[in-house]
């Protein structure tokens, strides 16, 4: 009885261990150091009650024992160990067991909604085929689906009985800083995944860089609900606090989705300074959840929220303002907002705003952003502006360049493609030479695929040149939508172009143009419905579907489908969709 009461005290915010800002050769060494103190991870239930405190010391001890089990099972340095990234002590221990065994942990996603069993199993199977792991480990509840996904690919185990098997004690391999630390699958499409390979050196440099920008250290506490299969959750909210010896309060992502205000309860409860990150939609659903019956001032105290980080999707200033309007009564300070820009291919952070400046934005004419340039053609039409957020300056160790289509560096405030070089850039895509060469030049410049401009050293991101579509912080790929439609009889690649459109509220929505030969308007309506439900069934997205005449979709000079041209021709009215019976 008394034991469980002691176990349920959260790990402290302060301890006697001297602060070291991610200055380690490997992430295993970072955990060894954190384990000398009293800090650690704290897992909460959906109502924000503490269910498990997991000091870094206990994590390190568990991970070392589990590493022996992996070695006894034949796992060798460089092998991959795939892990279902459930927020909890089991995943953390298995992740670091792989690290201590010299293997690459590969976090895999969780299911997120009603239905879609087949799609989830297929997604896991595709990622397993890409990383070819020695084995895949999962929590008990998801094991039947994971076992199905792994059939014929690799052994699958429920991690609890797997790690309960005792193993002989032996020396653990020694990693060096240039070794790969982990593979991250958050950036590829579901159908055609790319595993981002990050070295220990790149990881720790990036962790030190953003801790420096946030002045993170003793006296801070991290609060997070972000998923561990995403770079901001894994790198920003699990590895960063650990490598900087900071305690963390976790809420599982699915619990946040159900009860988002529990996030703010955890922040309110922290007597010291809080660092907590979220994509735009996290702030949005909290502000929307507050009704007249909730006394914000009484229920929350957000006055010690020192860094309210923004990132992972396009930052929408009006949503952030709505959050400030609602939570000002709870002491929330707009200056706590900390815009940032990053991507898994650069470990996590590329740029961070100076502390305390909050959200600063430029108003840019929509026509400049869409590339149609020129002044206002029709003076009677109002000019539509979009607010572009200042995402701050490059983190130490990274350099940003903006280049034109022909690779020339453009002057300040000119929009171009964003390139990044320096410590923190990935080693490459795992076993994918072609994709690596396309993204990473021999002299180390990473093509982020994003469009933006620099202004006095600060980066402003205006959109993506890559065709990724981000909805509610989740990345979707047009290839997956197009692939879904190709599964219908009579459609082939090249007939279909999917891309993101921006709704008037600034949110992204997926749209797809499909070439069709049907002349009957009723048949077109049936066809459009069939396409909509196929996309829905395979990708889970509600997509705008437009049928267009044959041979209207534009090609690039090399004969490949150009999604970006199709998008701009559709938006400008150059491509006219067919009428469809209502």
């Amino acid at each position, binding site marked *: 009885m008394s034991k469980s009461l002691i176990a349920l005290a959260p790990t402290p915010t302060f301890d006697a261990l001297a602060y070291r800002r991610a200055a380690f050769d490997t992430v295993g060494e970072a955990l060894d150091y954190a384990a000398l103190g009293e800090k650690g991870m704290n897992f909460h239930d*959906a109502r924000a009650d503490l269910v498990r405190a997991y000091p870094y010391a206990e994590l390190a001890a568990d991970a070392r024992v589990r590493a022996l089990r992996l070695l006894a099972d034949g796992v060798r340095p460089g092998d991959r160990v795939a892990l279902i990234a459930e927020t909890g002590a089991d995943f953390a221990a298995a992740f670091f067991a792989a690290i201590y065994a010299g293997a690459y942990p590969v976090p895999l996603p969780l*299911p997120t*909604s*009603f*239905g879609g069993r087949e799609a989830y199993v297929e997604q896991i199977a595709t990622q397993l085929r890409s990383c070819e792991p020695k084995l895949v480990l999962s929590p008990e*509840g998801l094991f039947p689906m994971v076992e199905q996904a792994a059939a014929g690919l690799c052994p699958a185990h429920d991690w609890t009985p797997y790690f309960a098997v005792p193993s002989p004690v032996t020396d653990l391999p020694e990693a060096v800083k240039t070794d790969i630390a982990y593979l991250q699958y958050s950036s590829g499409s579901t159908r055609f995944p790319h595993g981002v390979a990050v070295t220990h050196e790149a990881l720790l440099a990036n962790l030190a860089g953003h801790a420096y920008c946030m002045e993170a250290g003793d006296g801070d506490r991290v609060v997070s609900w972000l998923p561990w299969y995403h770079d901001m959750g894994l790198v920003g909210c699990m590895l960063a606090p650990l490598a900087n010896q900071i305690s963390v309060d976790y809420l599982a992502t699915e619990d946040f989705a*159900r*009860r988002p205000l529990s996030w703010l309860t955890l922040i309110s409860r922290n007597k010291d300074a809080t660092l907590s990150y979220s994509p735009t939609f996290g702030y949005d659903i909290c502000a929307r959840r507050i009704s007249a019956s909730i006394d914000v001032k009484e229920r929350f105290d957000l006055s010690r929220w020192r860094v309210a980080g923004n990132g992972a999707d396009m930052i929408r200033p009006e949503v952030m303002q709505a959050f400030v309007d609602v939570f000002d009564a709870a002491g929330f300070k707009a200056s706590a907002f900390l815009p940032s820009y990053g991507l898994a291919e650069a470990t996590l952070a590329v740029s961070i705003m100076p502390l305390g400046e909050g959200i600063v934005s430029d108003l840019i004419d929509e026509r400049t952003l869409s590339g149609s340039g020129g002044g206002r053609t029709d003076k009677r039409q109002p000019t539509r502006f979009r607010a572009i957020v200042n995402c701050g300056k490059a983190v130490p160790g990274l350099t940003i360049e903006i280049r034109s289509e022909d690779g020339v560096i453009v002057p300040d405030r000119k929009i171009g493609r964003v390139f990044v070089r320096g410590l923190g850039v990935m080693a490459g895509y795992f076993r994918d030479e072609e994709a690596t060469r396309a993204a990473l030049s021999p002299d180390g410049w990473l093509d982020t695929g994003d469009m933006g401009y620099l202004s006095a050293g600060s980066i402003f991101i205006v959109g993506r040149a890559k065709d990724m579509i981000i909805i509610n912080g989740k990345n979707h790929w047009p290839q997956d939508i197009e692939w879904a439609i190709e599964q219908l009889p009579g459609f082939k690649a090249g007939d279909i172009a999917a891309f993101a459109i921006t709704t008037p509220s600034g949110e992204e929505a997926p749209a797809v143009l499909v070439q069709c030969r049907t002349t009957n308007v009723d048949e077109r309506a049936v066809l459009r419905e069939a396409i909509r439900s196929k996309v829905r069934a395979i990708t889970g997205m*509600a997509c705008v579907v437009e049928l267009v005449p044959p041979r209207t979709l534009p090609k690039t000079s090399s004969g490949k489908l150009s999604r970006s041209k199709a998008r701009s021709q559709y938006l400008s009215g150059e491509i006219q969709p067919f009428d469809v019976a209502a």
Partner: protein
Amino acid sequence: MTDRAGIYARIIELIQPLNSKSIVLTENTSFAGDLEMDSLTVMDLVASMEDEWDIVMPLNMLPDLETIGQVADAVMRLVTK
């Protein structure tokens, strides 16, 4: 009301405000295909069902629940457990 019919009726009431296309709800109505619910709306509904019957619907249950009838069965199992 914790019989199957009562649970089903209450689930229909909980879904109705989220039924933006005002489609007819039946046992076989699917959340993704017919109601076109995104994952955030689904989790919102899960939270209201958990509050209604004081249950916890584990995440690993969700991929097998395609229709309203299957959700009613799942709630029934959790309530009577």
